[in-house]
């Protein structure tokens, strides 16, 4: 399965590139990622939430790097769900913004795991990536993920529709939110 999405961020390419190159930043805005940490110069360990409550983990390595223009990575050979990703940055015509073009590719296996992954992405798998990029834009432009009373969970927003009512959160919900 291939997913593409694009957004325009009002920041220079160098800044967007530097942000993306720190893979630890990715879980801030990518809904399915719980953690990404560097394990070497070009290698990293990824952990994603899975629909059946457990997590999928894999190692990845950067396979292509052009400063301020492109970064691409792929999972190691033993990954349960082999995947590759590629981010291409293009200066926008306005002279101040950067177009971010993302391509994610998943080799969805057969069996229960494959079914679970397909179910996780749902009927509109690209919607999740669109929402991820919207949050990337928020993080880069306003410094954080935008929250409202109806959607206070930041990157979990899409999964929570219909939402909680648009009224202030009671203290226990706020405390729970602070923990997640």
């Amino acid at each position, binding site marked *: 399965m291939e997913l593409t999405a694009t957004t325009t961020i*009002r920041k220079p390419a160098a800044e967007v590139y530097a942000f993306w190159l720190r893979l630890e930043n990715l879980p801030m805005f990518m809904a399915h990622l719980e953690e990404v940490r560097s394990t070497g110069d070009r290698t990293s360990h990824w952990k994603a939430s899975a629909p059946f409550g457990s997590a999928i983990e894999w190692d990845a390595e950067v396979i292509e790097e052009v400063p301020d223009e492109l970064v691409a990575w792929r999972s190691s050979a033993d990954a349960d769900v082999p995947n590759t990703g590629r981010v291409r940055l293009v200066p926008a015509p306005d002279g101040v913004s950067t177009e971010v073009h993302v391509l994610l590719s998943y080799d969805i296996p057969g069996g229960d795991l494959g079914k679970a992954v397909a179910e996780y992405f749902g009927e509109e798998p690209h919607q999740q990536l669109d929402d991820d990029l919207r949050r990337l834009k928020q993080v880069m*432009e306003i410094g954080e993920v*935008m929250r409202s*009373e109806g*959607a206070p969970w930041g990157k979990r927003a899409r999964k929570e*529709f219909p*939402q909680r009512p648009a*009224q*202030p959160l009671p203290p226990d919900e706020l405390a729970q939110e602070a923990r997640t």
Partner: protein
Amino acid sequence: MKATTWAGRNKVEVRDVPDPSILNSRDAIVRITSTAICGSDLHLLDGYVPTMQDGDVMGHEFMGEVVEVGPGVEAGRLRVGDRVVVPFPIACGVCAACAAELYSCCENSNPNAGVAEKMFGHPTAGIFGYSHLTGGFAGGQAEYARVPFADFGPLKVDGDLSDEQVLFLSDILPTGYMGAQMCDIRPTDVVAVWGAGPVGQLAMDSARLLGAAQVIAIDREPYRLRMAEDAGHTTVDFSEVDIRSALLELTGGRGPDKCIDAVGLEATHGSAHIHVYDRIKQAVRAETDRPHALRQAILACRNGGVVSVIGVYTGLVDKFPAGAWMNRSLTLRTGQCHVQRYMKPLLKRIERRELDPTRIITHTLPLDEAPHGYNIFKRKRDNCEKIVLKP
């Protein structure tokens, strides 16, 4: 705290809800001193704006005193104790839309942008108390409200102006003004305004301020027409005369040079069978909006004129007169108001007494009586034009 909440179609309730808290670093909490019921709140009440949920706090016209600021708010911009009017569109001030002063199209303020995008093609900004489509933000018909981007949107005002003089800077005064401004008014222009509700009245005053030769108010409620007449505008009662003929008569057969639709999606038509046609299509969801005012404005407008739309539309309309629009060189301009663009200049105009938005206030009620307020505003009882609520 007490807050006015949506409790299903045609039902609002004042309920006890938790006090608001800071959710983003540039938030502030405002203790509300005055808030108002807007005509567009009636679209929510009547169930024409999708994605409302039971318990949603209503209200997007409010002002008050800052009681708490988030860690991202610079003290030079806003402090606890400041008196502020809050603009209804939530706008970050840094995205490309905000840089172009298109604040109601802010690209970062709507957490539910994906939903809005499905409905509109591209997403729009967050709005206080105005459905989950515009973000799911709690509104301001309450004792307190959380205000995002508090260092950018809210307008600080001095104490020598009353709440009533500045409250409408939150929405209806800038909205009416933008309606007139989009008309590019010239001194020879006759401007016709469909709808003599609060926004229509302020659009009329703005059109005159911007130099229109004559301003015509179109409505059918005698008290609203009288209010327009008292303010010096010409009036047409569409329940008594054919609008097009009346407008031709008033303009020597030319038609108004500029037309403003201050009605929107719940219009009433003078001709019963056309109204029934649209009402039925709306009821079975084959059409979301009843665009009578928009149709009439396009058909009535002079060749080469401007039709400026500030009445709210949410979805699809039927029988849009594209032929009249195209063949007669009309310009259609519209938008949810970019309030932040107009607050400071309009505050100056209020200070200079060039505009007096208080003239439309007919009722001041305690917050507890919000359901009664919604009822008389919706049914146009008790000569209700504009209600200010005091929490």
